[in-house]
């Protein structure tokens, strides 16, 4: 079968993806008018805040022939061909029209002046950005969902922004007048000027022929060099009209419940289609239509019978949500103009059935109550206005829709949990697609899991329902390389100080680039961000690696000179190296350049990583020693340096049973024997000291190294966030015996994997500090003030104690008042 698709937007993409996934065996040819493949139009605005075209672009499935920059200009239904603007003709057996819609530009005088734009495509945004460079002010015509989004974009481009809305309040399709007034307060507080109940008389040009002002019907002029029309959209049904297909009175290609037009060989899907009596302007129903059409093309019998138009969004920092009906016999309203919150529920005349609701400033009721639309109220209406009070998902009947984006009912989710033994939200997402689009139903998915008896207490934080170990597996198995990708696919929101460093650490453990590369840099806490440990006055420490504690006099002298020249406090640490304290951020690169030139490298004192491998002098010097503990310590420290882990890692090597290196207080400790080495694991100093347990005795050096490799990698894979090896080992089901089975007898069959992972770490190690001082981009961050790079932080000062510096602290109470 030859399938031809006209238009390559999100809907066309979903159609093609579904067909390919389901094994469609014909040819697919797609014509897209835009100069690039389909992209996520819903996320269009993020293009202005730094997302690239690539970030937004969908992946075109293999085998699909896509012609971008080509417009279909006519359809010959008798010959079953389409013709493009280049005059090329393509035959089809089945044609799908997915031509979307075009912004409606009202016939205002001046609408075509340079400086007037619409807001629909990447090209539109490029043009708006360009025009905004020399502009002071901008006006958006239309105060609906898209208009406010465009207004936010203009604000982000630095323009004084106005919004002109014809109706009496903002977002008239989603909220009522009360909600509109609360929304307006929010938006005005952000510095935008809102004109409601206002039309446009004309748009006036300045002397340069470009837009200079917008004139309201009352004659008042609004200064503006950029005008964006966002006054609604019109379905692009011109191809259908041209070939005589039935179209609606107010536009839109008429389709039946199988998305078929009045010609049985032609389907129409997405914003160009008039389905179930209306044209849908939201992406979720468009996707549902694409799936129905794909099913029909594959000879299925799926039907599109309408979709929930509930919306929840966050615009300019304000939550706005609407679900179900926007009116009802009775209603309950809660309004707090000071806090900027408005919530209203509509109920049936006997006050028993929930009909719908509107929320501004707090979308809580949307999440908890949307599934109850058309059902008995789960509690007293006034209680329900306070998000979720008294409601839980178990009160929901099985046929209630939990995920409206993907049309998934509670019953379907419960069945998936029971049949597939799902234990987490990710599992539900994978099996049912629930929660994969807007994410607003994820809290409900969690509740359903809990009520199904699944323990979800392991969630890392509010952004991930997974434990650290699960995230590690996801990142490793799916080859994920960025936090953005991980959170988009497996989490919600934008992360926090808990999940970001965890993911940064996982990416680093798996060797996915320098920790300050690209987006990874933003995930790091301040220590990793500046490759140095923050001290109480906001200065940082410098700790070069001294493997095994062995150092030449020359290198010792360099450390002394650097400390003297930069006025740093020096102290010998418990890990057999030297702390240099009191460095300001802008000093760090110069300090490190000196150290790197002298052959030092980062000691990772700032990272959740291997710290030091401490050693005694061993058999080389000590009259009791039986093995070269220093040699082994250096080898191990160099092997595992830079290895990121759930928490810091410490090690010690003693040359005989007298144990001078205190190896048994370390995460992994080695004590020499006559025959080889004894390996101890899970030791800890700190808060709850613990002696390490003997894992294996009398190992050869090779066996020892292999066992430590696997121990560390298994720990890194499976431990919780900030769980030292001691707590991890104690929590390990089966304890030391189990650990031995896994890493020495390969009971899980993962040893080859663990080995390979460690080999990769060893092979790809680079000194983070050397990489940083050689990269001007990474160096840019090392300033106290971006607007005054040469100026040190004036709040940092020192006094002298025992001939060295000591921080002068700012008295807290005085500043707090």
């Amino acid at each position, binding site marked *: 079968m030859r399938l031809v698709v006209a238009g390559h937007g999100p809907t066309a993409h979903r159609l093609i993806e579904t067909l390919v996934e389901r094994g469609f065996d014909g040819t697919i040819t797609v014509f897209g008018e835009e100069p690039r493949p389909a992209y996520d139009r819903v996320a269009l605005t993020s293009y202005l805040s730094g997302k690239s075209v690539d970030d937004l672009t969908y992946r075109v499935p293999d085998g699909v022939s896509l012609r971008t920059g080509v417009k279909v200009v006519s359809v010959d239904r008798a010959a079953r061909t389409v013709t493009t603007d280049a005059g090329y003709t393509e035959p089809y057996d089945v044609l799908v029209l997915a031509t979307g819609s075009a912004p409606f530009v009202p016939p205002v005088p001046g609408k075509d002046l340079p400086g007037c734009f619409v807001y629909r495509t990447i090209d539109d945004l490029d043009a708006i950005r360009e025009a905004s460079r020399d502009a002071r002010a901008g006006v958006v015509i239309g105060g609906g969902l898209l208009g406010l989004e465009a207004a936010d974009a203009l604000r982000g481009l630095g323009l004084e922004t106005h919004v002109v809305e014809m109706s009496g309040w903002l977002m008239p399709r989603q909220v009522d007048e009360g909600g509109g007034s609360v929304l307006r307060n929010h938006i005005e507080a952000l510095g935008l000027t809102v004109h409601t109940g206002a039309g446009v008389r004309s748009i006036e040009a300045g002397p340069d022929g470009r837009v200079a002002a917008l004139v309201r019907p009352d004659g008042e002029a609004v200064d503006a060099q950029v005008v964006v029309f966002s006054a609604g959209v019109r379905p692009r049904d011109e191809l259908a009209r041209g070939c005589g297909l039935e179209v609606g009175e107010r536009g839109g290609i008429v389709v039946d419940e199988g998305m078929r037009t009045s010609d049985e060989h032609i389907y129409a899907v997405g914003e160009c289609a008039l389905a179930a009596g209306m044209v849908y302007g939201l992406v979720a129903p468009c996707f549902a239509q694409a799936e129905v059409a794909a099913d029909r093309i594959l000879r299925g019998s799926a039907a599109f019978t309408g979709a929930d138009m509930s919306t929840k969004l966050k615009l300019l920092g304000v939550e706005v949500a609407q679900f179900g009906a926007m009116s009802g016999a009775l209603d309950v309203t809660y309004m707090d103009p000071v806090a900027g919150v408005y919530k209203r529920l509509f109920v049936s005349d006997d006050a028993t059935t929930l009909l719908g609701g509107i929320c501004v400033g707090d979308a809580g009721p949307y999440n908890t109550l949307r599934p109850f639309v058309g059902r008995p109220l789960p509690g007293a209406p006034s209680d329900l206005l306070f998000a979720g009070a008294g409601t839980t998902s178990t009160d929901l009947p099985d046929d209630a829709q939990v995920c409206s984006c993907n049309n998934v009912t509670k019953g379907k989710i419960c069945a998936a949990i029971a049949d597939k033994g799902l234990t987490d939200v990710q599992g539900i997402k994978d099996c049912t697609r629930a929660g994969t689009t807007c994410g607003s139903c994820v809290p409900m998915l969690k509740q359903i899991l809990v009520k199904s008896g699944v323990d979800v207490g392991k969630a890392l934080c509010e952004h991930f329902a997974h434990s650290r170990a699960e995230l590690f597996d996801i990142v490793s198995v799916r080859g994920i390389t960025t936090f953005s990708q991980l959170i988009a696919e497996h989490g919600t929101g*934008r992360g926090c100080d808990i999940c970001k460093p965890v993911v940064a650490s996982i990416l680093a453990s798996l060797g996915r680039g320098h920790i300050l590369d690209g987006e990874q840099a933003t995930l790091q806490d301040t220590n990793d961000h500046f490759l140095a440990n923050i001290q*109480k006055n906001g200065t940082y420490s410098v700790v070069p690696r001294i493997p095994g504690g062995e150092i030449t006099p020359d290198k010792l002298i360099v450390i002394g000179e650097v400390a003297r020249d930069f006025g740093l406090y020096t102290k010998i640490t418990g890990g057999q190296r030297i702390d240099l304290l009191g460095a300001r951020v802008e000093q760090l690169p110069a300090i490190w350049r000196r150290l790197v030139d002298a052959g030092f490298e980062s000691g990772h004192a700032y990272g959740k990583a291997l710290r030091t491998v401490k050693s005694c002098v061993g058999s080389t010097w000590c009259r009791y020693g039986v093995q070269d503990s220093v040699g082994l310590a250096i080898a191990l420290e160099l092997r595992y340096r830079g290895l990121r882990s759930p928490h810091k890692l410490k090690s010690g090597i003693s040359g005989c049973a007298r144990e001078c290196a205190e190896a048994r207080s370390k995460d992994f400790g080695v004590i020499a024997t006559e025959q080889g080495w004894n390996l101890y694991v899970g030791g800890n100093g700190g808060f709850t000291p613990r002696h390490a347990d003997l894992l294996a005795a009398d190992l050869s050096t090779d066996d020892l190294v292999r066992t430590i490799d696997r121990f560390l990698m298994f720990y890194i894979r499976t431990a919780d966030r900030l769980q030292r090896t001691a707590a991890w080992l104690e929590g390990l089901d089966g304890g030391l015996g189990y650990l031995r089975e896994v890493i020495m007898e390969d009971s899980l069959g993962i040893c080859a994997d663990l080995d390979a992972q460690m080999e990769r770490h060893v092979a790809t190690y680079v000194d983070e500090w050397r990489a940083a001082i050689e990269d001007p981009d990474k160096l840019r961050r090392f300033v106290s003030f971006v607007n005054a790079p040469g100026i040190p*932080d004036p709040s940092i000062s020192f006094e002298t104690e025992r001939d060295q510096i000591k921080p002068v602290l700012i008295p807290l109470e005085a500043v707090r008042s």
Partner: protein
Amino acid sequence: MTILNETATRTDRWTPVCSYTDLLPERGAAVLVGTMQVAVFRTFDGALYALGNFDPFSGAYVLSRGIVGTRGGEPTVASPMHKQVFSLVTGVCVDDPGVAVPTYPIRVTDGTVEVSVA
């Protein structure tokens, strides 16, 4: 309408501090405005926020170096010192609402970030 005058008077209060592209998404930076230290943040969606750089819990000027994220949808920064989380919108400490840091107006003009501390 008095838009032009309004713009003019407003401009006086604004201090240009850096270019928008100097700010990494989801990261903060400290700027010096006169003798005041202001922490400016650029969030994922491109929005900008400005808080006082002083961390009231540790007494150090370090808030600009915290991790930016969200709590229940609200953009936040966590102090790098003892991890208390502050709202970027209100400056209120999420973990201890009795404590707050000042917030300042911030905007972009021709690609230049400006804050107003007046």
